[in-house]
C-alpha cells in the first residue's frame, strides 16, 4: 500500500508537454526527481515508469525470445561435389536435412518454459583420408554396357596396394610418367543416412531487472550420445541501458563409433586398440568419452537512441576423445635402408591409413562483438559483427559479418548478409605424413635369424636353420604345418604425437552471402525463408594461403520457418479472443468445441466454421512393425519365406525384424467461406528398419551385400493439399466432402550405400519416403452429436493418378472406412473409441534401377492387404488460462486383425499425438 501511496499521479497533459518540450534530462536530474518528487520531474518519473512497463520499450536485446511463440523450421544443407582432379566421382555429396520445432511459454508472470526439438538426417560422401594424388587412391569401377566397358565411378582405396613412388627428397611421383606431383586428393566414402535427435528444455525466471535460466538436454545418434546442462542469467543496470549476461555449461558425450566395415580392415587402429571392441556381427566399435565445460559472459550496452553494442567472451575446455572416429591420416612408410642406399632412383613408399590422433584436451577462447546502428531515413538496421577466437591447438580465427535489416511495407523484412571467415591451421594438421621406417618388419633373434611363430599360437616361436628346418626354442627340429613370420609393427614414437588431415583443422578462408525474407501476417504468424551460399577456399585465408585447395568446396543452405505467437493471436479485439470465450463460456463451449472431438488419428474430419478463421496444427505419428512374419493372416516360418517369400528365381536371405516410422505433419487450415476450407499439410518422416538373416537361407556368395545394424531414411515426405466442402448441416448432424491431392515431394529413389564395393541399390519400397506419384485423396465424412455424445463415420481413399513413378513402380490404391463414438468426460475432455478398416492394393511395377532383392520387402507383391484396427483416444481443449483454446489429442491404434498380401511383417500399433489452435 505504501508503494501505491508514493506513486506519483500522472497528468497525461503534463506528460505530453514534457515530451514536446524535449528537455534534456540528465542522470543527476532523474535522481533528483526521485527524491524531490516535485513538479514536472514528478511527471517525468511517472512517465518513465509507465513507459518502461510497456513491453515494446524494454531493451529488446536482453530478451531476444520474449513473448510466447511456437516455431517450425525445415532446413536443407547441400554441399557441392569435391574436386577429385578428374577422377570420376559418382558419389553424392553431403546433404543434411534439419527439422526443428521449438516453443516458449509463459507459465506465470515471471516463469517461462521453453523446449526445442531438432532432428538431423544426413547422408552423402565425406572425406575419410587425404592422400597424395600420385598414390592413385581410387580404383575405377567398370560397368559393362552394350558399347563396351565404361568407367562408371571410382572406388576409394585407403591402402593403395601398389604404394606410391617418391623421389629422394620424398616428393610423390606419378606412376606412369615419373613426373613429380605434389597434389593431394580427398578420399571420400559414402555414409548411409544417419539420424540425430536433440531435445532441450529450459526453465526461466524473470525479475524486473534480472533473469535466470536453467536448461538441459540431450543429443542422440547411433554412435554419439551427449547430454548437457546449462545455468545462465542476465542483470540489467543503468535503467536497462546496460545488460550483463552470463552462463556456464557442461556437456558429456559417449562415443561408440562403428568403424566403417568397408574401411576397418584397411585402417591402422593400434593407437586405440584398448578402446575397440568387436561386436557379435563382426563390426568394430570404438568406445570413448568426451567432456566439455563452457563459460561465457557478455554485455549489451545502449550507446545512443540509434545504436547499441554487444560484446561477449567465451571459454571452452574440452577433454577426452576429441578425434573424429571416421577420419584417418595417410602415413607413407619409407624403408630407411633403401632411402639411404646412395642411389638416385625413385623409391617405393608403403601407403597406410592410421586413425587420426588429436591432443587429449583443448582450451578455446572467443571474443565477439556486435555493433548495431539504426539507419533512420530507411528505418533499417545495420548489424556489424566481429569475432576472434584462439585455442591451444594453434587455431586462430577471424570472422567479419554484416547484416542489413530492411523493413518494407506490407509486413515484409528483407535481410541481405555477407560473412568472411579465416582460420589458421592446427599445429598438428598435415595432409599426409611420411615416416622413415617400415610399416612392419620381421623380428630377428640375437643371432640375426628371422623369427617365425605358430599361426595358431603366436606365443610359440621358431627359427629356421640353413636347411630351412624349423627349430623350436630348444634347437630341436620340429614339424609345424602353419607358421608365419613374427612381425614387429612400426615405432609410433617416430610419428608426431598428434596428427590429423581433417580439412576443418586446415588453414583456409570462407566467404558466404545470403538473404533472409520475413513476412509478418496478421494474427501473430510470421513466415521466414533464408538462403545462404558458402564457398571455402584455402587461398582466401588471411595472410598467406592455406595450401590445401584440394579440400575446397561450396555449400548452400535453404530454410523455411513458421513462427506462431499465440500471445498476439489472443489479444483483445482479435477473433482469437472471441474464440476463447466460446470455449470458456459454459453455454457455448459444446457448440464450438465440437469440431475438435474427432479422434486424433483421423484426417479431414473437421471444418472451420467462421470465414477468415485459421487453424495451425501439428501431428506426430509413430507406427511400429515387429514380431512375426505373416503370410495372409498366418504366421510363417523362415524356411517358407526363404523358398516362397521372394520369387521363383530368387531365394530370400533376409527378413525385416522390426520397423519404426515417425512422421511429423504440419496442418495449416483456412476458411475463406463458411462452406469451404483449404488445407496444406507438409509431412516429414523418418524410418528405421532392422533386418534379420533368415534361418535356412542359401549360403552367402563371395562379395554379397551384408547387413549390419539397420537402415534409416528421411526426411521430406509427400505434401497434402486439400479442400473440404460442407454438403449438409442440420442441428446435430453435418456431412462434408474432402478433395485432396498428394504431391510427390518425398523421394522414391533412396539407395542403400555401397558396401564391400557392391552397390546396395534401391532401398526397400516401404522405406522410400513418398509414393512418387500425384495421388487423388477424396473423403466423405459424417459427424453427429447429442448432449454429451458425439459420433461419426468416414470413408476415404487414395487413387494413384500415374501409372508409374520415376523409379518405375506405383504404390497400391487405398480405401479406408472408419466409424467412431465419443463422450464428454468433462467440459474439456473427451474420450473416443473407433473402428478402422483399411484395404490396400499391392505395388505395381518394380524398381527400374538395381535393387538388392534380399527379402520379401523388396518384392512388390508383398505390400498391401486388409487391416482392422481399434482406436482409443482422448481429446482435450484447455478451457482457460495461458493455453486457453489449445487443443491436444492422443490416439492409439491397436491392430486386431491383419491379412497381408504375400509375406509381410506383423504390425504392433500406431500412436498419434496432435496439437492445434484456431484463431
Amino acid at each position, binding site marked *: 500500500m505504501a508503494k501505491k501511496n508514493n506513486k506519483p499521479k500522472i497528468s497525461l497533459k503534463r506528460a505530453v508537454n514534457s515530451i514536446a518540450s524535449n528537455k534534456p534530462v540528465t542522470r543527476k536530474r532523474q535522481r533528483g526527481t526521485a527524491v524531490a518528487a516535485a513538479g514536472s520531474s514528478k511527471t517525468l518519473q511517472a512517465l518513465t515508469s509507465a513507459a518502461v512497463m510497456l513491453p515494446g520499450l524494454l531493451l529488446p*536485446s536482453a530478451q531476444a525470445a520474449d513473448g510466447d511463440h511456437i516455431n517450425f523450421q525445415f532446413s536443407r544443407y547441400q554441399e557441392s561435389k569435391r574436386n577429385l582432379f578428374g577422377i570420376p566421382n559418382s558419389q553424392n555429396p553431403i546433404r543434411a536435412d534439419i527439422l526443428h520445432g521449438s516453443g516458449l511459454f509463459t507459465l506465470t508472470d515471471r516463469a517461462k518454459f521453453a523446449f526445442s526439438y531438432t532432428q538431423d538426417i544426413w547422408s552423402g560422401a565425406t572425406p575419410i583420408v587425404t592422400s597424395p594424388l600420385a598414390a592413385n587412391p581410387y580404383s575405377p569401377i567398370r560397368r559393362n554396357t552394350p558399347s563396351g566397358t565404361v568407367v562408371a565411378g571410382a572406388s576409394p582405396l585407403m591402402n593403395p596396394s601398389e604404394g606410391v613412388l617418391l623421389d629422394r627428397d620424398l616428393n610423390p611421383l606419378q606412376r606412369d610418367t615419373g613426373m613429380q606431383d605434389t597434389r593431394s586428393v580427398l578420399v571420400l566414402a559414402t555414409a548411409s543416412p544417419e539420424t540425430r535427435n536433440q531435445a532441450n528444455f529450459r526453465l526461466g525466471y524473470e525479475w524486473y531487472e534480472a533473469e535466470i535460466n536453467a536448461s538441459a*538436454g540431450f*543429443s542422440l545418434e547411433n554412435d554419439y550420445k551427449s547430454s548437457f546442462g546449462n545455468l545462465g542469467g542476465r542483470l540489467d543496470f543503468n535503467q536497462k541501458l546496460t545488460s550483463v549476461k552470463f552462463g556456464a555449461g557442461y*556437456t558429456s558425450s559417449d562415443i561408440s563409433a562403428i568403424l566403417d566395415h568397408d574401411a576397418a580392415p584397411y585402417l591402422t587402429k593400434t593407437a586405440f586398440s584398448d578402446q575397440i571392441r568387436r561386436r557379435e556381427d563382426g563390426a568394430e566399435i570404438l568406445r570413448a568419452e568426451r567432456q566439455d565445460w563452457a563459460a561465457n559472459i557478455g554485455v549489451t550496452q545502449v*550507446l545512443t537512441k540509434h545504436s547499441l*553494442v554487444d560484446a561477449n567472451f567465451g571459454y571452452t575446455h574440452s577433454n577426452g576423445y576429441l578425434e573424429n572416429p571416421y577420419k584417418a591420416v595417410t602415413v607413407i612408410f619409407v624403408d630407411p635402408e633403401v632411402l639411404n642406399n646412395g642411389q638416385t632412383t625413385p623409391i617405393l613408399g608403403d601407403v597406410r591409413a592410421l586413425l587420426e590422433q588429436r591432443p587429449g584436451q583443448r582450451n578455446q577462447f572467443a571474443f565477439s562483438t556486435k555493433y548495431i546502428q*539504426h539507419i533512420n531515413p530507411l528505418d533499417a538496421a545495420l548489424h556489424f559483427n566481429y569475432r576472434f577466437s584462439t585455442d591451444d591447438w594453434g587455431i586462430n580465427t577471424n570472422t567479419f559479418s554484416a547484416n542489413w535489416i530492411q523493413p518494407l511495407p506490407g509486413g515484409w523484412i528483407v535481410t541481405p548478409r555477407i560473412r568472411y571467415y579465416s582460420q589458421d591451421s592446427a599445429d598438428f594438421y598435415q595432409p599426409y605424413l611420411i615416416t622413415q621406417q617400415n610399416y612392419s618388419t620381421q623380428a630377428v633373434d640375437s643371432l640375426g635369424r628371422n623369427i617365425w611363430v605358430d599361426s595358431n599360437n603366436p606365443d610359440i616361436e621358431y627359427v629356421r636353420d640353413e636347411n630351412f628346418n624349423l627349430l623350436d626354442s630348444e634347437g630341436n627340429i620340429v614339424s609345424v604345418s602353419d607358421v608365419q613370420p613374427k612381425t614387429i609393427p612400426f615405432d609410433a614414437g617416430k610419428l608426431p604425437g598428434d596428427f590429423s588431415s581433417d580439412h*576443418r583443422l586446415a588453414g583456409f578462408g570462407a566467404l558466404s552471402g545470403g538473404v533472409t525474407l520475413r513476412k509478418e501476417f496478421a494474427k501473430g504468424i510470421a513466415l521466414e525463408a533464408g538462403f545462404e551460399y558458402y564457398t571455402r577456399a584455402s587461398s582466401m585465408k588471411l595472410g598467406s594461403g592455406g595450401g590445401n585447395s584440394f579440400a575446397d568446396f561450396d555449400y548452400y543452405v535453404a530454410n523455411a520457418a513458421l513462427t506462431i505467437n499465440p500471445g498476439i493471436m489472443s489479444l483483445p479485439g482479435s477473433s482469437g479472443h472471441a474464440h476463447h470465450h466460446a470455449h470458456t463460456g459454459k453455454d457455448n463451449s459444446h457448440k464450438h468445441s465440437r469440431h475438435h472431438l474427432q479422434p486424433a488419428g483421423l484426417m479431414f474430419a473437421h471444418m472451420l466454421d467462421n470465414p477468415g478463421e485459421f487453424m495451425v496444427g501439428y501431428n506426430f505419428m509413430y507406427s511400429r512393425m515387429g514380431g512375426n512374419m505373416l503370410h495372409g493372416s498366418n504366421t510363417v516360418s523362415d524356411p517358407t519365406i526363404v523358398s516362397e517369400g521372394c520369387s521363383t528365381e530368387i531365394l530370400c536371405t533376409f527378413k525385416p525384424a522390426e520397423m519404426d516410422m515417425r512422421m511429423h505433419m504440419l496442418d495449416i487450415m483456412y476458411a475463406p467461406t463458411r462452406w469451404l476450407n483449404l488445407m496444406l499439410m507438409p509431412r516429414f518422416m523418418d524410418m528405421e528398419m532392422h533386418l534379420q538373416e533368415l534361418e535356412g537361407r542359401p549360403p552367402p556368395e563371395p562379395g554379397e551385400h551384408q547387413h549390419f545394424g539397420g537402415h534409416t531414411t528421411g526426411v521430406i515426405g509427400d505434401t497434402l493439399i486439400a479442400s473440404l466442402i460442407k454438403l449438409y448441416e442440420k442441428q446435430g448432424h453435418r456431412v462434408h466432402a474432402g478433395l485432396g491431392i498428394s504431391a510427390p515431394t518425398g523421394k522414391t529413389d533412396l539407395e542403400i550405400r555401397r558396401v564391400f564395393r557392391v552397390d546396395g541399390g534401391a532401398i526397400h519400397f516401404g522405406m522410400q519416403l513418398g509414393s512418387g506419384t500425384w495421388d487423388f485423396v477424396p473423403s466423405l465424412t459424417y459427424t453427429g452429436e447429442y448432449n454429451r455424445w458425439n459420433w461419426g463415420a468416414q470413408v476415404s481413399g487414395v487413387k494413384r493418378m500415374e501409372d508409374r513413378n520415376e523409379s518405375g513402380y506405383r504404390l497400391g490404391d487405398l480405401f479406408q472406412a472408419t466409424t467412431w463414438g465419443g463422450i464428454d468426460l468433462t467440459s474439456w475432455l473427451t474420450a473416443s473409441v473407433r473402428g478402422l478398416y483399411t484395404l490396400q492394393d499391392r505395388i505395381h511395377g518394380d524398381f527400374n534401377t538395381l535393387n538388392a532383392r534380399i527379402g520379401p520387402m523388396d518384392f512388390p507383391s508383398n505390400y498391401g492387404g486388409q487391416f482392422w484396427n481399434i482406436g482409443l483416444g482422448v481429446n482435450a481443449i484447455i478451457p482457460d488460462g495461458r493455453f486457453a483454446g489449445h487443443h491436444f489429442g492422443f490416439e492409439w491404434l491397436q491392430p486386431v486383425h491383419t491379412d497381408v498380401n504375400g509375406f509381410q511383417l506383423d504390425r504392433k500399433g500406431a500412436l498419434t499425438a496432435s496439437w492445434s489452435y484456431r484463431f
Partner: protein
Amino acid sequence: MKFKHFFIILLISVSGVLASGCAQVPVWERGHLAKHQMAVDPYPLQNHIQLHNYSSREAAASTHSSDGGGGCGCY
C-alpha cells in the same frame, strides 16, 4: 604470446564498452531500439541454423558454447 595478444584486444574492447556506459538514452527515446531489426539476435532461428553449419565446417570457438547442444558433426 597469442593469448596475450588476445587479452589485449579483449581489454580494449571491454573498456570501450564500459566507457560508453555513461551514455544516457531516456526511456521515451528508445522507440527505435525496441524495433525488431535492432534486436541483438533478430533471427534466432536463422542464426541457429547458420551457427550449426559453421560449427560443423569450421574450427572456431564460440562465445555461446555454454548454451549446450551436442552431436558429433562427424560429416
